[in-house]
């Protein structure tokens, strides 16, 4: 087990270099001169463009730029935005908020999605099953920004139950509604996935055996059935944390959360390779670590899986 984890962690290193090169190259190939639109409806003075080009080594060929960037990154220096702000500071300020938001969303989708899925899976074609079917269809059909605007307007402006926007330090209690919005579509998937999995496994031999043994229903469902049915759901939830963080940009915008979404968007538009790479690399790491965690959870859920 220890060796397996170590091997997986070592694999992160080539992935790290691969993704940074790829992202750096992608941002670099975005068309447009970063300083062409900086001064509004007139061209920027030559002296300004020259100054910035020199300062950020933009005249150098791509490999040289990337080398500069990596050399700094390995000493812990994420570099600066064109506006002169430290990217490391931006990441330190914005990441915790996005992570909190994604975790809240994940928790909500896991709790509500699993409960709905288990209940509807056990009572197939019952009233509850149909209700879950219709409501999840409904959730999947509405884009996140619609859910966001509607909830913000109703809860924040109309009924004044919450603040329409989230405070700067983004406490968990204020993130519940944005978290629900962000997780709503995944929640529907979790419910559907759990329902199918439960429905399928409830006819499996080991469940029949457990029932025949005279085990209480609670134990049959809670341990035998649920544990085996969770594997596809855990896979989904694990990778979903990464997508929730990356996809939080819309939700962050609606609720005014100071997260990474706005910085990434701004940096892509202004061709700030260093900023995009810095933020996305951390995102990639989260994604990889979550995948590792999911793989380890498999072993815990299914005794037949062992890692050596």
């Amino acid at each position, binding site marked *: 087990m220890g060796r397996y984890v170590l091997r997986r962690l070592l694999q992160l290193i080539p992935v790290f270099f691969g993704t940074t090169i790829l992202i750096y190259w992608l941002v670099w190939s975005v068309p*447009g001169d970063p300083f062409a639109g900086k001064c509004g409806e007139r*061209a920027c003075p030559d002296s300004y463009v020259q100054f910035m080009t020199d300062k950020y080594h933009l005249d150098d060929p791509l490999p040289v730029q990337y080398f500069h960037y990596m050399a700094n990154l390995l000493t812990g220096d994420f570099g600066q935005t064109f506006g002169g702000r430290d990217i490391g500071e931006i990441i330190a300020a914005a990441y915790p908020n996005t992570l909190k938001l994604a975790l809240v969303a994940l928790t909500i989708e896991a709790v509500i999605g699993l409960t709905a899925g288990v209940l509807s899976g056990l009572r197939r074609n019952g009233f509850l099953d149909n209700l879950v079917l219709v409501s999840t269809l409904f959730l999947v059909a509405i884009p996140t920004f619609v859910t966001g605007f509607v909830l913000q307007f109703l809860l924040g402006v109309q009924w*004044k139950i919450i603040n329409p926007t989230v405070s700067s330090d983004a406490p968990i209690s204020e993130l519940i509604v944005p978290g629900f919005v962000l997780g709503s579509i995944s929640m529907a998937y979790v419910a559907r996935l759990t329902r199918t999995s439960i429905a399928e496994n409830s006819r499996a031999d080991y469940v029949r055996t457990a029932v025949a043994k005279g085990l209480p229903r609670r134990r049959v469902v809670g341990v035998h059935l649920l544990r085996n049915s969770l594997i596809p759901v855990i896979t989904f939830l694990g990778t979903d944390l990464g997508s929730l963080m990356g996809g939080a940009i819309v939700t962050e915008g609606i609720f005014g959360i100071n997260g990474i979404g706005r910085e990434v968007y701004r940096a892509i538009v202004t061709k700030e390779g260093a900023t995009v790479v810095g933020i996305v690399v951390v995102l990639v790491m989260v994604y990889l670590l979550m995948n590792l965690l999911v793989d380890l959870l498999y072993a815990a859920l299914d005794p037949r899986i062992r890692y050596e």
Partner: protein
Amino acid sequence: MRGSKRASVVALTAAVALVVAGCGGGDDEDTGGDDKTATGAITIDGTQPEVGLVPANTTETGGGDILDFLWTGLVMYPAGGGDPKNALAESIETTDSQNYTIKIKKGTKFHDGTEVKSKNFVDAWNFAAYSPNGVQNGSFFSDIEGFADVHTEDPDGEGAQKAPQPKTDKMSGLAIVDDYTFTVKLAAPFSIFPTKLGYSAYYPMPDVFFTQGMEAFGKNPIGNGPVKFVSWTDNVEIKLTRFDDYTLEDKVKIKDVTVKLYQEDTAAYADLLAGNLDYMQQIPVSALAGDKWKSDLGDRAIEVDIPVMQLIAFPIYDPKFKNANLRKAISLAINRQEIAEKIFFNTRKPATSWARPGAPGGEGFTCTVCEYKPDEAKQLLQQAGGFTGELVLYYNADASHKEWMEAAANSIKSTLNINVRAEGVPTFAVFRQNINARKMTGPYRAGWQEDFPSAENWFGPLYVTGGSSNDGLYSNAEVDRLYKEGASAATEEAAYAKFAEAMKIVDQEVPSIPIVSVVQQSGTSNKVTGVKANNVGSIDLSTVSLA
């Protein structure tokens, strides 16, 4: 927004006020127990400044609005866009429109307590003009004698050669007479020069700026305006507080101002409706449709003209658009009234002048080709020999220009019976890059926000040969001559008369097409009273009182 989560709006606003006041921290907090305004705090909306808060290096409104709060310039521009008035300047005198003597008021202070003296202006201007400092507003000083010695250009554009080191770092046209007097000699007479001096590039800089450098100063700016800087949390908020040693006219009555930095205007609007925001500069488009914002806000809705126009400019360097009759035909074929009504729900006014409504000196800038005259348009197109191929109008697709550009294209198409369509360029950066490189192959969207309230700003930069935003390379010797004569005229009136004469020629040659002038829709909370917008539409802090 830093208060409790679930309290009622009233309690919440009170909490915000308390917390904000606490952060501002001052001894005089006890003095105004009965006067809510003197100790009061407001929250307004803004956007994250792109660069550090240095006037010479800021060209966008997110940072520009904050700078205008923090600084007072030599002259100020009254709300509504009238003639500029002296602010920090005691007097600005000239006899020949080329040599100016500027006297500044005595005893005004920077926020660090040092006095504003003439050297603070001269040093700041020299710093901005010196090309190795690489500031965005460097070219604003090109009128001043000796600019070429401190500001060198790259000889081969984007090529391998570097711009040579300037000869000196001081412009010969600037001289300090005494602590409160300095003189400016321009390279050529320019009668509108005093009007320009209220623009942020001309603000004085405290001594500490020159020792600290741009980067450190930009994070903790020290100005000379009615409010001073407290703190800036990236993407979250910028806090300002009243500067009690301020002696000029536009003192602020309230104590603290928090500028909340929003990513989406819809979030700010929700905060405005919920009472968490006291001033929102531009109501989002989604709330303008069907006048929803007016029913949402009632008497808290404010409408004000701002000095911005939307135009469509011609790439005159493209042989297709050399014929003035063709350009005129296209202009006359656009139904501006309909665009203003149907696309903008009357939140824009159809253009009738080459300058925005009410620009000082702009009376003679009438746009005769801004009317919708389908018959005349068809006739002119025939005279121009028709138009073959497809006419493509370009716009940048990262802002909401698609609808009106398409409407304009359709209007031209149905009037002139030629093949017209509008095409979006993905981002403003790519769009501007093509324009700067003179690579446009069709008329393109151009917006113009005046730098200072004067008809000159709607003429010189746009239609004079070599003008800083004459991107279409329009050039007419007669126009240039009249501009030069006007610029060197002894008085502004004489200058404007010449400019008007020149614009009559421009009006016949149609280097660009004015479409609409912009009206801004703002809103306030019910906590504040008397709020007015300033000349560019951001809040005039001196007008704010708490109800």
